């Protein structure tokens, strides 16, 4: 059974998700094909596959977003299946059409169900038809700031302006009063136009005490569907998720809401004859009311937490549905039982206070090990976080019997993790890499997080998570051992540089002459 040949799968993605898909595909007996851009010539995902095809320049639209080039690579490799991963072409119905035309099976939903649910405005109409709750807002795209203001008056401030084509917080603005509507509309619309090639916006009421909860579903493409439980992803910075967990703490307080959400999610999935893995995102308020937000017609970044508690492999399910094996004969999808708790955090190359992207070369990388710890990454040795793509470095997830134990495991895992830029001769860093690791280490010790009351404004409500300590406070807190360590470090460095003793080679790999050192000190450029 181990030498099955299930066909050739092209993975139209990069980074950790391409590797994650390749692992399962190889295990199932697929031949795997990678595609890569100029920037990813030496990418780990290229090595993870059996074959690899170059598809163009580093900019996504020249390579990973270029339908013709991806299809050409698929034909050249003889691929019969394409897995899109997440992002890039994963939610573009015209790519699905192109696959069908080329006689290649797209691992995911049909173009039709993608069109029905993928676009937020069409999705709202579907939700209204099914009589399910959604956040009050404009029925369709609004054309300008004045129209947005009219809707806002109707539903009441605060409101959210959101890009119709958007995701991940791009092209999104909170507006608290009428005077800010026009400028917010302009900014968000411009951002959306440059990011997604579409500037249309819609208006939505802002829910108070909001929790972001999503339901993982899986459809057979013929109206049959199962759910695989929920995920709460309320902790977000810049409207992007950074911590995802299951079960959702808010639904533990409102178990009836959980069941109602499962029912609603399955109703939608069946209605659009959805095929494969999909996610229905909802907002749940503090009182347990839920509102439909949008559907993601693809595998989610945070799918590992669902895999942890259900013991399932979502990519394997996707692939076996595509080959027809999952629903062959009288076989039906089975709702898995869920046990324990799982949490995932995303490690990004970004400033831990401003959350601005800070990609760059990596000098040292070390990931955690231990029972029920999983790391999804494409960076396994010193390399570089590319500035061309999303700056995510890794997803670290854990499982345990209870949420409390999972938090303990994740805390230790995060403390074990080291990601540092390369060092120069005096310890200063080479390149601009920063990571949010320090932020995550504070997050996992935060009382509000530990208590499970994780609303989407958690980061703003806990300024100590992102606060820089004043020099006076730091100076006062220095321990004896820290003081000795730092003085020792600097003196040894100085000594090994100037004395050039027998030890200088090992302590100082990029050794400089005293002349170079002197010129650096004087600020003279070499």
């Amino acid at each position, binding site marked *: 059974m181990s030498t099955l040949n299930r066909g050739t799968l092209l993975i139209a993605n990069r980074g950790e998700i391409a590797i994650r898909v390749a692992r399962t595909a190889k295990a199932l007996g697929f031949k795997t094909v990678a595609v890569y851009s100029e920037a990813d010539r030496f990418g780990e995902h290229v090595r993870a596959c059996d074959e690899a095809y170059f598809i163009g320049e580093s900019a996504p639209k020249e390579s990973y977003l270029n339908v013709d080039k991806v299809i050409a690579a698929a034909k050249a490799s003889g691929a019969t299946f394409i897995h899109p991963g997440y992002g890039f072409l994963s939610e573009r119905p015209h790519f699905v059409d192109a696959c069908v035309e080329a006689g290649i099976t797209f691992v995911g939903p049909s173009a039709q169900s993608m069109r029905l649910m993928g676009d937020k405005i069409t999705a709202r109409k579907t939700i209204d038809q099914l009589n399910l709750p959604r956040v009050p807002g404009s029925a369709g795209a609004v054309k300008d700031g004045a129209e947005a203001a009219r809707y806002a008056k109707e539903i009441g401030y605060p409101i959210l302006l959101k890009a119709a084509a958007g995701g991940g917080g*791009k092209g999104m603005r909170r507006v608290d009063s009428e005077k800010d509507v026009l400028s917010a509309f302009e*900014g968000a619309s*411009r*951002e959306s136009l*440059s*990011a997604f090639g579409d500037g249309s916006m819609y208006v939505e009421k802002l829910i108070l005490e909001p929790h972001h909860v999503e339901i993982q579903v899986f459809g057979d493409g013929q109206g049959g569907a199962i759910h695989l439980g929920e995920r709460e992803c309320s902790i977000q910075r*810049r409207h992007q998720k950074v911590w995802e967990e299951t079960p959702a703490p808010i639904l533990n307080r409102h178990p009836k809401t959980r069941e109602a959400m499962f029912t609603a999610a399955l109703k939608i999935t069946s209605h659009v004859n959805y095929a494969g893995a999909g996610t229905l995102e909802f907002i749940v308020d503090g009182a347990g009311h839920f509102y439909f937000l949008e559907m993601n017609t693809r595998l989610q970044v945070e799918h590992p937490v669902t895999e942890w508690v259900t013991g399932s492999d979502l990519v394997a399910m996707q692939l076996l549905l595509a080959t027809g094996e999952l629903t062959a004969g009288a076989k039906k999808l089975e709702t898995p039982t869920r046990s324990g708790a799982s949490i995932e955090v995303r490690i990004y190359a970004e400033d831990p206070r401003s959350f*601005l*992207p*800070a990609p760059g070369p990596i000098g*040292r990388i070390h990931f955690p090990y231990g029972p029920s710890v999983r790391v999804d990454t494409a960076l396994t040795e010193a390399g570089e976080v590319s*500035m061309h793509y*999303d*700056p995510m470095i890794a997803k670290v997830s854990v499982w345990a019997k209870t949420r409390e134990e999972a938090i303990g495991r994740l805390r230790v895992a995060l*403390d074990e993790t*080291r990601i*540092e*830029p390369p*060092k*120069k*001769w*005096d*310890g*200063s*860093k*080479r*390149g*601009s890499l920063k990571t949010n690791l*320090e932020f995550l*280490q504070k997050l996992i010790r935060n009382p509000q997080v530990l208590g499970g009351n994780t609303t989407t404004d958690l980061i703003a409500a806990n300024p100590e998570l992102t606060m820089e*300590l004043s*020099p006076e406070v*730091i*100076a*006062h*807190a*220095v321990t*004896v*051992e*820290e*003081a*000795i*360590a*730092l*003085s*020792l*470090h*600097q*003196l*040894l460095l*100085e*000594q*090994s540089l*100037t004395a050039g*003793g027998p*030890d200088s080679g*090992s*302590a100082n790999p990029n050794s400089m002459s005293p002349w170079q050192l002197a010129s*650096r*000190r004087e600020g003279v450029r070499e």
Partner: protein
Amino acid sequence: MSSLNGVVGNRKIRWIKAPVGSTGSGEVDVDGKIYTVSWKRDSDGVWMQFAHGCFGFDIYGESEETGADLVFRISHRGTNHVTSGLRFKGAGEVAAAAAAPGGKKKALRVRAQMPGKIVRVLVKAGDEVVKDQPLLVMEAMKMENEIRAAGAGKIESVKVAEGQAVESGADLIVIGG
């Protein structure tokens, strides 16, 4: 900085003899108390053994700038307690800082943290700005980001125009002291 006397934060340090070697031992006076320490340096920092226990620290520079302004981030290997923004200041450096005229500030250079495009320029040369005031809107990694002033001062020069593409590290704005 080769002075053996100096400070780290509020701690006064005096090495009895200059420490030598990537493994070695010596004596150091901290705030009037003598500690005997043996150490081993590695690529990430230093391990130290005292009579009262063993301590390991990772030590990383916090900026790309080299020289006397470089501060370090130091993290305890067991507890992962992190302290940022520290530097061992030798006696000469401390004296120079004390003797420096009080009001003299260095010009602040606002640099691009990543490649991107300037969408808006919100200030012009001669403007007085306060700390955290927005200076520019830059589009990078598909997001619009406000670049804010790291400190107060008068804008000396604006080196970019709206619509211009900039490389990582490019000077954007100089704020005078």
